């Protein structure tokens, strides 16, 4: 693995990353939360989009592996002065950094950067395209919920997961739709027709099912529900249901929560309580929302370790590049 640009990866590679994340997870219980594996390495968090949770998570992950971590945000940097992505990337690479974590509003920006700078690049979210570490941490949190401490080596075989909300604008949904089936899960995308991507709605191009009726899907008693944030800022001129229509059709209300008493609940955050998820659902003991945040650090440690610890990557497959 040279870069992590997409969540599309072979099952064995995904499980190896999740297992490594299990090892990283252990250090959260320790007095000294530090491993020396990336001592002397420098990682730049290049965030052209605002993000507190993902940036902090990558920063903590890098620091717990003893890397030097530098945060560069789009605002107030040379990017806001008109510098191109390529020049920004080349400048940072010329400073001798060993890896770049990039978040950008432009789909495909991390892949371009990876081609230009010749250093490992991690996609921390690009436009409406992908967010692979989020999908990995979702899988990690869900696998732990299902298998507990015996999760190592296991996939999500036969686990039925419904991803609910604005699928079309969600890079989280896309990455999950790529990763979860590779781990053996059965994924159903659920949302208003206007929020379903054509590729998913017209068949099985993604290897997943698409539905518009959440209540029908709940009748099937899925093992897990992933509620997506309604991203009003990303919808542009898209025809979208009003908040009232959305709540009626696709919100996990208290009533719907009661109908799926066994389902594990996931949400990538930040939540709009009362819109896509009720407060009772968010705070219930079936919610993994805070476990997902904790898992984020472990998964990002695993990714940074895999990309940066060795000068001799053990494999270079097409999936994760």
């Amino acid at each position, binding site marked *: 693995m040279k870069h992590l640009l997409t969540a599309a990866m072979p099952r064995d590679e995904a499980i190896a990353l999740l297992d*490594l994340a299990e090892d990283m997870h252990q250090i959260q219980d320790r007095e000294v939360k530090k491993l020396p594996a990336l001592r002397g390495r420098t990682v730049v968090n290049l965030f052209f989009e605002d993000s507190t949770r993902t940036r902090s998570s990558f920063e903590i992950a890098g620091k717990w592996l003893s890397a030097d971590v530098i945060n560069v945000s789009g605002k107030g940097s040379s990017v806001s002065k008109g510098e191109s992505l390529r020049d920004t990337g080349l400048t940072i690479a010329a400073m001798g950094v060993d890896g770049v974590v990039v978040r950008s509003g432009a789909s495909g920006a991390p892949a371009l950067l990876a081609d230009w700078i010749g250093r490992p690049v991690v996609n921390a979210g690009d436009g409406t395209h992908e967010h692979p570490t989020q999908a990995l941490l979702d899988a990690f949190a869900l696998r732990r919920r299902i298998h507990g401490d015996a999760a190592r080596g296991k996939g999500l075989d036969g686990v039925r997961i419904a991803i609910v909300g604005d699928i079309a604008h969600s890079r989280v949904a896309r990455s999950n739709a790529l990763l979860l089936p590779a781990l053996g899960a059965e994924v159903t995308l659920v949302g208003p027709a206007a929020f379903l991507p054509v590729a998913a709605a017209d068949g099985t191009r993604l290897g997943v099912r698409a539905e518009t009726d959440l209540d029908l899907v709940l009748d099937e008693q899925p093992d897990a529900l992933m509620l997506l944030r309604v991203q009003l800022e990303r919808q542009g001129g898209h025809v979208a249901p009003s908040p009232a229509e959305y709540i009626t059709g696709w919100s996990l209300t208290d009533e719907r929560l009661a109908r799926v008493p066994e389902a594990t609940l996931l949400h990538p955050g930040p939540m709009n309580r009362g819109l896509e998820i009720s407060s009772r659902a968010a705070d219930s003991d079936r919610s993994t929302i805070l476990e997902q945040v904790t898992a984020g650090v472990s998964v990002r440690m695993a990714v940074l370790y895999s990309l940066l610890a060795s*000068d001799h990557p053990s494999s270079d497959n097409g999936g994760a590049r």
Partner: protein
Amino acid sequence: MTQPGTGVGGTTARTVLGADEIARALTRIAHEILEANQGPDDLVLLGIPTRGVHLAQRLADRLGDIAGIDFGPRVGALDVTMHRDDLRGRPTRASQPTRIPADGVDGKTVVLVDDVLYSGRTIRAALDALADLGRPRAVRLAVLVDRGHRELPIRADSVGKNLPSARSEHVSILLDEVDGRDAVTIEDRAQGTPAEGGTA
């Protein structure tokens, strides 16, 4: 005992320890550990993956038999991958689980258990890894085979067999739990295929 046998790579290898000898060596090491510690109090065994973990478990069984107490809760595994000083020079290493006994290692006498003592770099990494977990009262080292060629000033407290070897020779530790049989073999790399295991 020195006899020809089949090495891991299918080449000719000398068997220098058989199953019975490994069993006797572990029993002797268990007695040495108890004697040095003046009893079983506050002893913790941490095996270094992969084979060290199985050896630590076997030692715990023997210690339990000798001391008449259950050593199960005092056995763990200490992965040293993240603390190695050669991470950059080799392909990415997969780590193994670290399991620490529930009572932790603070104030305990920790016996690190590994299959082969060679350069000493694994043990250096283990000492670093252990320091992240707590502050043992003392740290001891028990190995099944010491083959020499130290690159660091590290010495084992208990050794199953001292096995002077050339650097070109490959020492393989085979354990029933991993390899389906117990044996220690040695073969010359110039003649045979390098085998996995026991290169620590």
